[in-house]
């Protein structure tokens, strides 16, 4: 979307706050390359020890589903309540199940 070749591309930033947790999307920033994106992400998104690890992905590389397709896209899971444990009747007296 950049109008000028000297403009830095946009990167999406994901931070893992603690070992063992997911990397979570926190926002975006512009940077000339991945190294710079990581350094800038550290300065912008982890000033208060919020981070243990950083992922950056160039925004142009992210593909997403279309909001207007959401109904049909997610429809197949609407009628499969047997995928949830609460669907099943547990005989009285049975334990630890």
């Amino acid at each position, binding site marked *: 979307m950049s109008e000028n070749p*000297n403009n830095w591309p946009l990167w999406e930033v994901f931070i893992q706050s603690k070992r063992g947790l997911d990397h979570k999307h926190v926002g975006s920033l512009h940077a000339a390359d991945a190294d710079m994106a990581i350094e800038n992400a550290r300065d912008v998104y982890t000033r208060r020890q919020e981070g243990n690890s950083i992922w950056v992905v160039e925004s142009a590389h992210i593909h997403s589903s279309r909001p207007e397709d959401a109904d049909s896209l997610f429809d197949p899971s609407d009628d499969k309540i047997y995928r949830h444990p609460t669907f099943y009747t547990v005989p009285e007296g049975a334990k630890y199940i």
Partner: protein
Amino acid sequence: MTEIKNLEERFQARIDDEQKIEPRDWMPDEYRKTLVRQISQHAHSEVVGMLPEGNWITRAPSLKRKAILLAKVQDEAGHGLYLYSACETLGTSRERTIDDLLSGKAKYSSIFNYPTLTWADIGAVGWLVDGAAIMNQVMLCRTSYGPYARAMVRICKEESFHQRQGYEIMAVLAKGSPEQKEMAQDALNRWWWPSLMMFGPTDANSPNSAQSIKWKIKRQSNDELRQIFIDRTVQQAEAIGLSIPDPDLKWNDETKHYDWGVIDWTEFNNVVAGNGPCNKERLAARNKAHAEGAWVREAAVAYAAKKAKRKAA
């Protein structure tokens, strides 16, 4: 025509249902435009807001205060970035948004067109200006546009130290020598009314507010937020022995709020129109910084290209 109407109805229904709007959702053009204007103004305010405080970094009275002020100013830069990013999700380019600030086309909060004359002003800015901004920002944590709301949550977490450090500066000065106390009072006198103006025109003179509230971009009116700010701040001033420069200020036992005087809207309009004490200086400083940073932006691109080429070889 009916299709647009249906889309608008579904959009409003989603908002009424307290669901967030996300970047790729359909939204009315006016909603998008209002957000681009509001978020970019907000971002510009964070960035220009660094200037009056940056003025005191080299002259902070102790290393501790200097470190705190540096951290605060760095936060403001970060807040500007969170907001520019949120603005970009609406389909505007960063470059254009920044250009609009530099050319003077875009506005930023008028409060930053006032000068910081003494160290006490840094206290007053943190306590009053950040305090007033927080009122607005806490409300915006629940704004209907997802990326804006998320940026606000992040900002509010960081912002509370800003207000406290400012209040602490004022409290220390107010307990100091008579000259120091006078300096604190003088800063309060100069910053009080401009801080109240930060909430924007009165509800009666704010024609776009109703639509913003219907879209849940805003959730409280300018006057409501201003009143809460006054009620809280008067108590804080009393606690450190400073007085609010408003002869009409009086507790109203019936409304359980303070009654207070009249804002000088001529002054407000004048500063918004570009004639405040520091409008030209602020814009010149931003343009200078942007121009002097041009070679850095170009060098970074050249360096990234060189590294990529070396990696490919």
